[in-house]
């Protein structure tokens, strides 16, 4: 995996600090071309991996990079699913089961169970889960997707409920059907490591907030640091700037000093932002094997 992954919150007005900033970002990125321009700028900086949600607008972005594969041969998508608002809004208007039916390719699948004429077997429930994954993956067909992430709202919902079997179903399906590594985004790293290990997902790939001030690191920053030391999971750090609460240099210096972090996901709205994050990471996170780094970074 490359060491710097570009995230997509900034493109869709997800800003954990300011609603006003979020609105400005929505304006800035309301045309797909604006998103594509930032992705191309990242590519030029050697950042080829795009970690994105399965937002409807991703279809057009994927189309662009599929059509220009020759120009961007290393462009890679690490999709995170589902785009939860899509489902949450559907639940409000159609109810819980109605929402699931709406996103299934074959609406008839749940009918008998919904009518209460019979209960569903485990195999059928798992069939529904994998069909939902397939529906989300459709837009990325033809692009490399080496990692498929489960979004934190779902990972954490399942973690809390103790619905551990779903992790195993997701992991198996992602490996078998997409030849990809299953990844889990969470705000509750200690609980995630424990549960994923418990269902037999060894050395799981987990993306969580890792920042100097402990912002949204549920379970506490000490537990996170202990887990990083123990190296029992593959760590991807997000929210390293804690939504802007930590000055960039201080944030990057701290996160790069933590052990066993494989990659950092960051958000950027311009070529200049991308270059400055890139420079900070180069300074504080020197490549162990110069030139042989999988991120494709140039040796300074």
């Amino acid at each position, binding site marked *: 995996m490359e060491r710097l992954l570009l995230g997509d919150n900034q493109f*869709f*007005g*997800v*800003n*954990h*600090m*300011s*609603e*006003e900033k*979020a*609105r400005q970002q*929505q304006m800035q990125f309301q045309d797909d071309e604006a998103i594509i321009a930032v992705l191309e700028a990242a590519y030029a900086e050697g950042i080829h991996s795009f970690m994105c949600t399965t937002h409807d607008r991703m279809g057009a972005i994927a189309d662009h990079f599929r059509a220009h594969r020759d120009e961007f041969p290393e462009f890679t998508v690490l999709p995170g699913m589902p785009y939860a*608002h899509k489902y*949450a*809004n559907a*639940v*409000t*208007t*159609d*109810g*819980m*089961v*109605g929402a699931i039916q709406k996103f299934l390719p074959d609406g008839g699948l*749940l009918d008998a*169970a*919904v009518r*209460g004429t019979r*209960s*569903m077997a*485990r195999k059928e*429930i798992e069939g529904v889960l994998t069909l939902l994954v397939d529906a989300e993956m459709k837009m990325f067909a033809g692009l490399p997707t080496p990692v498929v992430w489960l979004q934190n*709202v779902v990972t*954490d*919902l*399942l*973690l*809390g*409920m*103790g*619905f*551990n*079997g*779903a992790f195993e179903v997701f992991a198996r399906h992602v490996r078998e059907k997409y030849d990809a590594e299953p990844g889990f985004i969470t*705000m*509750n790293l200690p*609980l995630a490591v424990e549960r994923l290990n418990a269902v037999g997902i060894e050395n799981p790939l987990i993306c969580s907030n890792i920042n100097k*001030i*402990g*912002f*949204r*690191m*549920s*379970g*506490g920053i000490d537990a996170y640091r202990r887990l990083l030391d123990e190296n029992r999971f593959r760590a991807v750090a997000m929210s390293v700037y*804690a*939504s*802007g*609460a930590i000055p960039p240099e201080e944030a990057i210096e701290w996160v790069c000093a933590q052990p066993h972090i494989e990659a950092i996901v960051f958000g950027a709205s311009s070529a200049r932002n991308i270059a400055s994050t890139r420079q900070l990471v180069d300074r504080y996170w020197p490549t162990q094997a110069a030139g042989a780094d999988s991120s494709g970074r140039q040796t300074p």
Partner: protein
Amino acid sequence: MIRVAVVGLGKMGISHLSIARALPGVELAAICDSSGIMLDVLAKYTGLKTYTSLERMLADEPLDAVIVATPTRLHAPMVRAALEAGVAVFCEKPFCLGTDEGEELVALAAEKDLVTQVGYHNRFVGVFAEVKRLLDAGAIGDVTHSLAEAYGPVVLKPQGGTWRSRKSEGGGCLYDYAAHPLNLMNWYLGEPESVGGTVLNSVFSREIDDEVSSTLVYPGNVTTQVSVNWCDESVRKMTTRITLWGTKGRIFADRQELQAYFREDAPELAGYRPGWNVKYTTELTEPVSFYLRGEEYTAQLEHFAQRVADHQVAGTNDFASAVVTDRLIEQMRVDADQPDARVSVEGTPRTPAATHTRKPGLLARLRRH
């Protein structure tokens, strides 16, 4: 360890179930819902004990508390059943459809000496709690005027299907959405003396209101302007915004950001200065033991669980405080149903009586096509 059950497995019920089961000090003992399929799936995968009848669950399970997250019209009978069984209750908002019912339940809980709470989670949002602290400290002097807003993308086209689109079941923007900023205003400024100029407008819904505007008047002509609309596609998710003007400054808050302006004569407060102050959620939010969708959802259940464990009957968002908001909603509906009481502007034809059941006029229908 307290034993808790969840009743109603819709969006909020599932969220409460997840959080409550992850809380230290809570044993999630059972779940109850009328939908067989949800129970069936959860029973298979989570090992939770399931019930389709609340009465049965209350009879069979030794419980300390229940979380009620059913449609609003079912709150009163279910809460009553739980209280009568001697069980503490956390109930989703809004509390009850009628103030009478709500007051009876307050009395019943008092008689049984039970802990109660309603899910007005905004009181557990760091920024909104900081506003309360600032107001209590007199940071902007005497409040003279305020603005309570909420906007979001809930009803974006003509529709109807679930209980949320039926007025008789507690659907509608006033009950379901405006309740949040109204509850915050009750917290900040108390109970208003009167309401006026309430208009409940349908934008896309057939039966319910999608837009709320109103004026709340507190003693001394202190006012709150209410502006709520859940047909606003321009925002990604619900945004609640409060602005307060006082004799010594002004405060603006949403769930992520506090902007406060203090005059030179405002009282000194640690961490603040005269002029503009900006603070963010990253600074104002206390960490929680488990995170799902926002710290406030966990914080409110941690508060409830702690109160049940310690048997602290007094606490944030008890039933009595939620009845204050129910009563305000009720009075706003009464106000909205009296369009004839409005003062007409001479020479201008009166607009048709605006009610939550009004059909769009011909012109409006043509305009939409």
